[in-house]
C-alpha cells in the first residue's frame, strides 16, 4: 500500500510534466488530492493494509498526521487551481510537478519506519518546495528561497548526523546497528546514554530547523512571506507536521530508553523559547503573511512544549497537530486572497478586507480567532488539553508562562488582523479586478468548518486515531 501512496502522486506529476496546456494542467492537482484522500480514508478503514515492509509501516501517529496532511492537501489543491487560473501568465509546469511530488515525499515520511529513510524523505520535502517558494521569480523570492535552502539543508544535515549517532548508540553497546523504529524501540533500554543524548540534541536542532523552532526559525518568515499562499499553507501545515513526526520518533526512542527527564527539559525550553520569540515579533508586525509565519513558529513551540510536558499532554499535542494544520490552511489561503485583491501584504496599504472581500476577510478574522485558541474552535480544545496536561503534571510555572504567551500572541496578532479586516479599503484597492470566487473560497470554508467541527465535537474515528497514537507513544500497542 505504501508504494501506491508514493507512486500515485509521482505518476500524476509525470502526467503534469507531459501535459502541454497551461490552463488544463492545474486541474490535475485536485485529481491528485482527491485520489490521495480516498486512498488515505480507505487505508485508515483497513488497518491490515498498514504494513508493507519492515521499513514501511503506517503506525498510529503516522496515520493521524497522514489524515491531517491529506485533508489539508485536498483543500489546497482546489484552491491552487483557482490561484493558477489567476496567474495564467506564468508557466506552471514546475509548480504543479513539484506540488505533486511534494505529496509523494510527504506520504513517504508518514510511512517510513526507518529513520534513515525518513531523513531522505524530509530532505526531499525541502528540495521540492524550494522551486515552489521561488514561483514568483522576484528578487525577494530568490532571497527567501536561498535562505530556505541553505538554512534548511544545513539543519537537516545535522539531523542526519544525529541519526548516525543514534545508530552508533546501539553499535557502542555491542548491539547490531539498525535504524528501524522497531529495533530502536526494542533495544532502547540498552542504548549507550552519551550517544543517545548527543543524538537527541542533534535531531532536535535538525528537525527543529525544519519545523521552525526558535532560534533556528530565521528562514521561516522570509519563506512564508514570499511563497504563494497555497505553498505557505502546505508548508505550515504539511512540512512542519512531517518534521514534527520525525521529532516524535526521536522522542519515542528516548522515552523508551528511560530518558524522559533529559528530553523533557530540552523540549520545554525550546517550546517556551519559540513561543516567546514568536510573540515578540508578532507585536507590531505590519506584514500579515510574515505574521502568519510567526504564528506557525509559536504553534511549533506549543507542539514541542506539549511533548516536553509528557504523557498528560500527549493527547492535546497530537490533536493540536491536526487543528493547527487545518487552521493554518484557513489563514494562509484567505491571506492569499487578500494579498491578491490589495496587491500588498502590508497593513499600511491593506485595510477594510471585510468590505473588499467579504468572504475571505471574514474567514481571515474567524481563522485568527480559531488559531489563538478562542472557543468553540479546534485549537481551543487542543490547547486547553495541553494546558490541562501541564497542570496535571504539576508544572504550574510552565502552564502559567504558556497562558501568558498565548495572551501576548492574541493581542499582537489581533492588532494586525483587525487593521487588515476593518476600516475602508483604499481607492486603488477597490479598483483591482480580483473578487472572491468559488475555487478560491469554498476550500477555505471547508477547512474552517472542519476546524469548527473538531472544536464542537471530535468525530469518533478521529478520536480513535488520536487515542491510538497516544497509546502507541506510551508503549502500549
Amino acid at each position: 500500500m505504501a508504494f501506491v501512496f508514493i507512486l500515485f502522486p509521482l505518476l500524476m506529476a509525470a502526467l503534469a510534466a507531459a501535459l502541454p496546456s497551461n490552463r488544463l494542467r492545474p486541474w490535475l492537482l485536485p485529481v491528485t488530492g482527491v485520489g490521495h484522500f480516498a486512498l488515505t480514508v480507505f487505508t485508515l478503514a483497513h488497518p491490515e493494509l498498514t504494513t508493507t515492509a519492515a521499513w514501511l509501516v503506517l503506525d498510529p501517529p503516522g496515520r493521524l498526521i497522514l489524515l491531517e496532511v491529506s485533508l489539508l492537501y485536498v483543500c489546497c489543491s482546489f484552491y491552487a487551481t483557482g490561484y493558477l487560473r489567476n496567474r495564467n501568465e506564468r508557466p506552471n509546469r514546475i509548480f504543479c510537478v513539484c506540488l505533486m511530488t511534494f505529496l509523494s515525499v510527504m506520504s513517504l515520511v508518514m510511512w517510513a519506519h526507518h529513520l534513515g529513510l525518513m531523513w531522505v524523505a524530509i530532505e526531499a520535502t525541502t528540495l521540492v518546495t524550494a522551486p515552489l517558494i521561488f514561483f514568483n521569480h522576484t528578487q525577494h523570492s530568490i532571497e527567501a528561497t536561498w535562505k530556505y535552502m541553505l538554512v534548511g539543508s544545513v539543519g537537516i544535515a545535522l539531523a542526519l548526523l544525529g541519526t548516525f549517532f543514534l545508530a552508533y548508540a546501539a553499535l557502542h553497546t555491542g548491539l547490531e546497528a539498525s535504524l528501524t523504529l522497531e529495533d530502536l524501540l526494542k533495544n532502547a533500554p540498552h542504548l549507550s546514554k552519551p550517544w543517545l543524548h548527543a543524538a537527541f540534541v542533534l535531531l532536535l536542532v535538525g528537525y527543529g530547523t525544519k519545523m521552525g523552532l526558535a532560534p533556528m526559525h530565521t528562514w521561516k518568515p522570509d519563506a512564508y512571506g514570499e511563497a504563494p499562499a497555497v505553498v505557505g499553507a502546505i508548508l505550515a501545515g504539511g512540512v512542519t507536521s512531517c518534521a514534527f513526526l520525525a521529532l516524535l520518533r526521536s522522542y519515542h526512542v528516548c522515552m523508551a530508553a528511560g530518558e524522559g527527564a533529559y528530553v523533557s527539559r530540552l523540549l520545554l525550553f525550546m517550546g517556551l523559547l519559540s513561543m516567546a520569540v514568536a510573540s515578540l515579533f508578532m507585536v507590531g508586525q505590519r506584514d500579515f503573511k510574515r505574521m502568519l509565519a510567526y504564528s506557525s513558529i509559536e504553534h511549533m513551540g506549543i507542539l514541542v512544549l506539549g511533548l516536553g510536558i509528557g504523557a498528560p499532554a500527549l493527547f492535546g499535542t497530537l490533536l493540536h497537530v491536526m487543528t493547527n494544520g487545518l487552521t493554518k490552511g484557513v489563514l494562509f489561503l484567505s491571506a492569499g486572497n487578500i494579498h491578491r485583491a490589495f496587491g500588498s501584504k502590508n497593513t499600511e496599504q491593506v485595510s477594510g478586507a471585510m468590505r473588499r472581500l467579504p468572504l475571505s476577510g471574514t474567514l481571515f478574522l474567524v481563522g485568527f480567532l480559531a488559531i489563538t485558541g478562542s472557543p468553540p474552535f479546534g485549537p481551543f480544545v487542543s490547547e486547553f488539553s495541553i494546558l490541562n496536561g501541564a497542570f496535571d503534571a504539576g508544572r504550574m510555572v510552565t502552564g502559567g508562562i504558556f497562558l501568558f504567551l498565548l495572551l501576548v500572541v492574541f493581542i499582537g496578532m489581533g492588532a494586525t488582523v483587525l487593521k487588515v479586516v476593518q476600516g475602508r479599503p483604499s481607492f486603488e484597492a477597490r479598483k483591482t479586478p480580483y473578487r472572491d470566487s468559488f475555487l478560491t473560497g469554498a476550500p477555505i470554508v471547508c477547512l474552517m468548518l472542519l476546524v469548527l467541527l473538531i472544536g464542537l465535537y471530535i468525530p469518533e474515528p478521529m478520536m480513535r486515531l488520536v487515542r491510538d497514537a497516544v497509546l502507541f507513544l506510551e508503549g502500549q500497542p
Partner: protein
Amino acid sequence: MTNLLNILLVVVLMLNLFALGTSRIISVVRAVSIQGSLLGLFPLLLHEHLSWAVILTIIPAIFLKGAVIPWMMIRALRDVKIKREVEPLIGLQPTVILGALGTVFALLFADQLPLASQHTGALVVPAAIATVLTGFILLITRFKALTQVMGYLVLENGIFIFGTLLVEAMPLVVEMGVLLDLFVAIFVTCIIVNQINRAFSSLDTRRLVSLKE
C-alpha cells in the same frame, strides 16, 4: 587496513585546510571533489568481504562527488564569471589557523568520546568532527553563494565519514536516497545561484538582506 585508512583520513584533513586557505573558488571545488571521491573509497577499506551492495554504493557515490557535482559547480562558476572569493569575513590565513585549531580540538575531543573498542585506533571520528567544523567555517566566513555551497558539501562529507562506521544500519535504498537528495540539492542550488547572479548582478550573499523585520 587501519593504517591505510588513517593515511587517507590525513589526506582528507589536509584537503580541509587547503579548501580553507585558497581564494580561488575553482580550487575549493577541486579539493572538495577529491575529498568526496576519497571518501567514496572508504567502504572498500572498512569491509573485510566485498559484497555487491558495497560496490553498488561506491560507484554512484564516487561518480556523483568526483565527477557530476564538480562538473555542475564548474559550469555554474563559468556562467556567473567569478573566480575568487574576495574579502571573506576573516582573512584566509586566520581561517586556516582556525581550521587547524578545529582539527586539534576534534582529535582531543574524540579521545574523550566513549567509542566502541573496534574504533579507538582509527581517525574516523576525529576526522568526521574536524570536517564538519571545516564545513561550518566555510559556511560562516565566506560570502559568495557558491563557496557557501562548497561549505555545505564539506559538512556533508564530514557526516559521510561518520556514516562509514555504520554501513549495516543504512541499507542500499537509503544510501541511494541520500545520494539522490544530495544531487538534487546541488542541482536546485546551482539554479538558484544562477538566478541570484542574474537578479543581483553578484553572488555576494550580503546583498540578500532586504527581507527582515
